[in-house]
């Protein structure tokens, strides 16, 4: 990921959102600029943002190139390495080789190993004089500039050094390590091409991935009779009319049932499953297996079901004390007994992590002491509220929760279903299914 991004002088526009960067020459159309800005914004939360954007651009350019004369370049992380696409009169320099688009098709897609940086700028322009120790840094936004130089964050494997090796906790290391490599993006042209080995990108057009024009390293035979394709011994799924089976380790909570037997949160006046009324006083709350508690929607639009809790961030377990993230067990584990991870695309949770738990009918967020902190934005709030470090909080349905750059929204049917039902009669229920 990006440790620092420096904007170079000159004409053009530099864009950065999350770990997606782009540069365009000054003659880029508004629509191209808007496309790059929106794409960077939308993909900023994805761990494979660069791959997705480059793939998409390659797909578009393969069918038509609306602005062949315009120089632009984009770069961002693929899952394993950085990827870039350089178009028109633009160039990329990764510290070892140049990327310059061939005349046909006029753009090049490459996999990059910044060593130590990546620069993107106009074709023929000189390399920006960036320095790893400079304090100049574009964290996010769209600014004028003739190119950019990008220093990636330390490679992940460096974070695995043991405390004994480093003399300090692993978590600290991620914060204190000097960046080890840089990426620069700018327009091509001023550097002496004789100084460097030029990258002939002609054969790299429209690659779906690093596997283009190469054999696969692993082939799994899926045909009938191949090893491993034996019949399953799993039981058939319950019939469609049956209520989904309770998980093997169901949590028992108090609730009320509608006349069809659906188990609901106490206080509901309509069943969240079938919308039938639950009249107060008809039934006293009694115990039953807790149903799932809704879903989480992440910044990239992914929807995760809340039938178990989630660990947020990449670390497996926190190392320090406090209300330990991971100490609670109710709802933290999925049915297979392993804690699920909530994959988020923004900054990793460096010092500890957060966790989302299910307790009773409530969803709880536990701050794990991460440097970036955990913020909540309940319905009706006007500002984000920072959680004190290593505390826990019940999350109101409809709340947003922020972990660094990532925002997760909690949607719970056990509240709003009632209000929906109240408005249904005036909205034409006859046309509706069910």
């Amino acid at each position, binding site marked *: 990921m990006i440790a620092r991004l420096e904007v170079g002088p000159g004409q053009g526009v530099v864009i950065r959102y999350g770990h997606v960067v782009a540069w365009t020459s000054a003659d880029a159309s508004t629509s191209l600029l808007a496309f790059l800005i929106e794409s960077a914004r939308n993909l900023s939360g994805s761990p*494979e943002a660069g791959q997705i954007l480059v793939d998409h651009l390659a797909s578009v350019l393969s069918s038509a190139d609306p602005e062949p004369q315009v120089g632009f370049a984009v770069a961002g992380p693929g899952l394993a390495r950085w990827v870039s696409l350089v178009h028109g009169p633009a160039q990329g320099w990764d510290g070892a080789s140049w990327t310059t688009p061939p005349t046909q098709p006029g753009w090049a897609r490459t996999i990059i190993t910044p060593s130590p940086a990546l620069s993107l700028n106009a074709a023929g322009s000189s390399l920006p004089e960036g320095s790893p120790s400079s304090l100049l840094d574009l964290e996010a936004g769209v600014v004028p500039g003739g190119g950019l130089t990008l220093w990636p964050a330390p490679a992940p494997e460096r974070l695995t050094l043991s405390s004994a090796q480093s003399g300090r906790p692993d978590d600290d290391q991620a914060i204190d390590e000097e960046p080890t490599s840089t990426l620069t993006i700018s327009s091509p042209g001023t550097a002496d091409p004789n100084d460097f080995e030029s990258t002939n990108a002609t054969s790299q057009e429209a690659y*779906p991935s*690093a596997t283009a024009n190469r054999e696969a390293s692993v082939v799994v035979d899926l045909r009938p009779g191949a090893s*491993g394709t034996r019949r*399953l011994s799993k039981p058939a799924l319950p019939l469609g009319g049956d209520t*989904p089976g309770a998980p093997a380790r169901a949590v028992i909570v108090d609730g009320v049932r509608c006349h069809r037997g659906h188990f609901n949160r106490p206080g509901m006046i309509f069943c969240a*499953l079938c919308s039938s009324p639950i009249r107060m006083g008809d039934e006293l709350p009694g115990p039953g297996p807790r149903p799932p508690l809704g879903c989480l929607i992440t910044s990239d639009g992914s929807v995760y079901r809340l039938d178990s809790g989630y660990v947020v961030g990449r670390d497996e377990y926190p190392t320090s004390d406090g209300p330990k993230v991971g100490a609670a067990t109710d709802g933290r584990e999925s049915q297979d007994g392993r804690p699920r991870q909530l994959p988020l695309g923004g900054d990793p949770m460096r010092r500890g992590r957060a966790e989302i738990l299910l307790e009773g009918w409530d969803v709880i967020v536990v701050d794990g002491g991460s440097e970036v902190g955990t913020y909540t934005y309940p319905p009706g709030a006007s500002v984000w509220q920072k959680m004190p470090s290593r505390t826990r909080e019940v999350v109101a349905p409809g709340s947003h929760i922020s972990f660094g750059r990532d925002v997760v929204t909690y949607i719970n049917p056990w509240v709003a279903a009632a209000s929906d039902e109240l408005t249904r009669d005036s909205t034409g229920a006859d046309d509706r299914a069910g």
Partner: protein
Amino acid sequence: MLSSVVGYRILGRAEPAASARTAYLCEAPDRLGLADQVLLSELAGSFLRLTEVSDLLRQYCAVASDHLLVLHELLGDEGSSSLFLASEAPSRGTLANATIPLEPQAKVLALAAAARGAHALHEVGIAHGTISPDAIFLTGRGPVLGPPDMVRPAGKVTTSKPAVVLNYVDPALLRGEAPSRASDIWSLGASLHMSLSNTALYPGLDDDEPVIAVQRVLYSRPRLDPGLPAGILDVIRSCMASDMSERPPTAIAVASILEGYEFADLSGPASKADLAEAVSASDQTGGIA
């Protein structure tokens, strides 16, 4: 020019299924011993997940059904952020993007075939979870259901970008329930509606931001096209009933209803020929008879 991917010689691009990034029509490598073209789909899973994904796909491949897409190989390359799935090629596209004109009855029968495929999965404990017209492939041997999305992280239900995907998601899944027979049946009903009607199940959904889109599906009911034939509407209503107990108990029950449907209600001939025959006819006439 891009000529091959993971050893497969590319003949042209194909419309990728919803769970794929890109797709290509390719020449089958000699080791497969196939004369037909194959579909090579690029999946978003990294090489690190190859073992896990191949285990899941092997479970799918072990299901004996003529109504499921035939898979050939899963391929990966170290360092790549993609996996590649080689399967039989849908010579006529998908139900969402058919390369031939499809009459309404052909669409109904395609849904029936997909329902049979879904039932075969259900009987061995697999819920599909992502049935939509994109997942129903029109092959030379008739319509079939494609494999579930095997590369999604644990707990992920769907995506809400683009929101149109939510048209096919049972609201029960947004309540947090795991995919099931009932949720797949809901998706079959939604797919039937979306295939036959030009009206949206959730008006405004396509323009919604992700959170609003999820709330719209969760807190409102789909609006069915009153212009559809009453018999079809009845099928769709029962599949999409908010109370699971009111839905058909199995996907094969849905298939039977659709296969027995009196096509005189729909525009086109009142034939109950199965889609394979209809497709064969289309090869001769340029359209499905």
